[in-house]
């Protein structure tokens, strides 16, 4: 479906202004990349629920809201404004305010020689000045599917800033790099309360035998007015590298948060992607690893926690393109009140990807009768010697377990919190111990406290039978 005329005009206006404003600093290749991407976005438009990949998520509210491109930056923010999102023991912290790098708010630790952690805009400028085609031009947009995914196209059209991380061969960064994306759409620093949009773009290249941990953290500051963040991260993990990527989404409850993590894995590269969705009104998290090199392994781990009328959509596309690769998907959802969760786990095993070992598990805890989960496995297998399994469960907090804890003296709210924490703990337990794990843990703990309070009487007293939709089957051969 093409973008509706009114919407197209709004995006076209933004795009024209954007192109003018950035013209002098834009190398030709980037200009072409943007133009082509914008044309694709106009061709494709926002998908409808008739599109299989968007069956459970309506974009009507997003499509009818006109957004202006936020480019104000960090003028009025003080470091103390960011205190709630301080990660202990981070190697470096890059802060982006409304999509643009805020160098005064960022801190660079002592980076090993050869490691680059900077804003993408500065890196583009630097590599352009050096007259080289560089890593940026070589990688940006190369892995994304802007034809199939309009949000990737839209992001690329407005591609300007984000993080650029390059870890050279053999260098292991033990401490995490913290990327903090602050949306100030509703704060005093915004000139008008018009809904605004940002399109952060990150490029992470981890060379052979190198190691890195990156935390992408999306937060909002100020009053709740609609905002649209549409982030794209391209992560290249070369042969034998090890990368941990953590996405934290906890923007306010009026925001549309879209994120796409496109992972390209080389031979024996090991990547773990952890997504924690806690905030936002309408959230779509795409994780798309391509296991391109033989023996690559990826863990796609996630936890989504929704309440109110939050809509949290998790879309996985795991592509096995080489033999002997392994992928593991584990997603746990906790949905309270009228929250709606979606888990769409697609696995494609290409013809040559023999000996693929792919596993997918989605477990959900519904805290009320009104909470909803749509879970959809989708396996496409073109090789003939593979192992693919998937399973999904839906359950509620067990009365038995709750009574057991209470019978030992633990109060009801505390008991519920413990049970939620235990369920969430399955996901947190898959994040390697360290600073990033501790940070993720604190994010989840804070979110769960609000859910542990007793549900409305109707859902507590009702003797609702355990809904246990246990589907588990294997496809082998």
């Amino acid at each position: 479906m093409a973008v509706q005329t009114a919407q197209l005009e709004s995006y076209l206006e933004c795009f024209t202004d954007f192109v003018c404003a950035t013209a002098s600093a834009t190398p030709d290749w980037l200009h072409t990349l943007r133009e082509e991407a914008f044309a694709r976005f106009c061709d494709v438009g926002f998908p409808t629920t008739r599109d299989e990949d968007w069956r459970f998520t309506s974009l009507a509210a997003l499509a009818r809201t006109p957004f202006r491109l936020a480019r104000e930056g960090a003028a009025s923010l003080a470091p103390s404004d960011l205190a709630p999102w301080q990660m202990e023991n981070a190697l470096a912290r890059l802060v982006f305010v409304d999509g643009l790098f805020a160098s005064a708010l960022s801190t660079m630790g002592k980076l090993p020689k050869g490691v680059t952690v900077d804003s993408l805009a500065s890196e583009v400028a630097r590599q352009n000045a050096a007259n080289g085609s560089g890593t940026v031009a070589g990688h940006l947009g190369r892995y994304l599917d802007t034809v199939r995914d309009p949000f990737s196209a839209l992001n690329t059209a407005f591609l300007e800033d984000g993080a650029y991380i390059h870890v050279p061969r053999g260098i292991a960064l033990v401490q995490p790099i913290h990327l903090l994306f602050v949306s100030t759409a509703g704060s005093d620093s915004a000139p008008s309360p018009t809904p605004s949009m940002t399109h952060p773009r990150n490029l992470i290249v981890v060379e052979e035998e190198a190691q890195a941990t990156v935390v992408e953290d999306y937060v909002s500051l100020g009053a709740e007015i609609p905002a649209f963040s549409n982030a794209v991260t391209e992560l290249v993990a070369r042969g034998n590298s090890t990368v941990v990527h953590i996405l934290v989404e906890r923007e306010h409850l009026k925001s549309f948060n879209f994120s796409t993590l496109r992972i390209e894995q080389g031979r024996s590269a090991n990547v773990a992607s952890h997504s924690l969705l806690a905030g936002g009104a309408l959230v779509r998290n795409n994780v798309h690893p391509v296991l391109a090199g033989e023996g690559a392994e990826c863990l796609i781990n996630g936890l989504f926690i929704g309440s109110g009328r939050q809509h949290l959509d998790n879309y996985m596309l795991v592509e096995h393109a080489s033999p002997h690769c392994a992928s593991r998907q584990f997603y746990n959802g906790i949905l309270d009140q009228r929250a709606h969760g979606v888990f769409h786990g697609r696995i494609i095993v290409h013809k040559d990807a023999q000996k693929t070992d792919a596993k997918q598990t989605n477990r959900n805890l519904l805290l009320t009768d009104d909470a909803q989960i749509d879970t959809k496995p989708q396996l496409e297998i073109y090789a003939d010697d593979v192992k693919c399994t998937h399973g999904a469960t839906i359950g509620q907090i067990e009365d038995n377990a709750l009574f057991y804890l209470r019978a030992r003296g633990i109060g009801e709210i505390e008991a519920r919190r413990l049970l939620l924490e235990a369920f969430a703990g399955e996901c947190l337990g898959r994040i390697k111990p360290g600073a990033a794990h501790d940070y993720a843990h604190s994010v989840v703990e804070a979110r769960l406290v609000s859910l542990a309070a007793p549900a409305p009487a109707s859902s507590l007293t009702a003797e609702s039978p355990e809904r246990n939709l246990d589907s588990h089957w294997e496809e082998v051969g």
Partner: protein
Amino acid sequence: MTLLQIRNLHARVGGHEILKGIDLTVNAGEVHSIMGPNGSGKSTLAQVLARREAFEVTGGEVLFHGKDLLAMKPEEAACEGLFMAFQYPVEIPGIGNAYFVRTALNAVRKYHGLDELDAMDFLPLYREKMRLLDMDEQFMNRSVNEGFSGGEKKRNEILQMAMLEPSLAILDETDSGLDIDALRIVAQGVNVMRSPQRAMIVVTHYQRLLNYIAPDFVHVLVDGRILRSGGPDLALELEEKGYGWIETEAGQVAPASA
């Protein structure tokens, strides 16, 4: 000192009346055994006392330390010193045993205005009680009851009891499904807990457990009523003759008194 006083307790589950007027007084230092055939209401009594909400009290009163037990939530009853060892202990994946017990112990301590115990204070105590119950230390970090054998689960119940030090312990068919070795260990754990300040109610179907935990009183519960109370000899008599004779005797008496 009277710990527990049950007067004319009636309760039902899912519309069925299970307890039809129970009277029982338990003093500190006493061990009472409640025996009875399947479906007589033994477990219902235990669950009602532990304040399980699904069991609806329709009449009578229960005083625990002189307070209205029936007005208490499960956690309040526990904090007041009531402990029920579950017939079917619940598996809780994702919560470690030690963490669970420390959280429980601290909840009880907080209720009584005491400082919470940190891991350093707690663990030596927990280890000591584990040794008493012949439990391997690796139990500490395993999830609560997850993948435990029947005997391990029951020992874990007694371990929790040993840590929480209740004034009234109700053992709900703690012996069922145990082999003789496990039964000995569990009984030893219980016997160590016997004290002049503490009372116990041992709910059981079989007399076997009472060879190891000698009761002061035996009560026979049939069809929601205590039909007979006596000393330890009553248990032996039941072992020999079964429950039938009491039911028959009662059946003859009941219409006459009606």
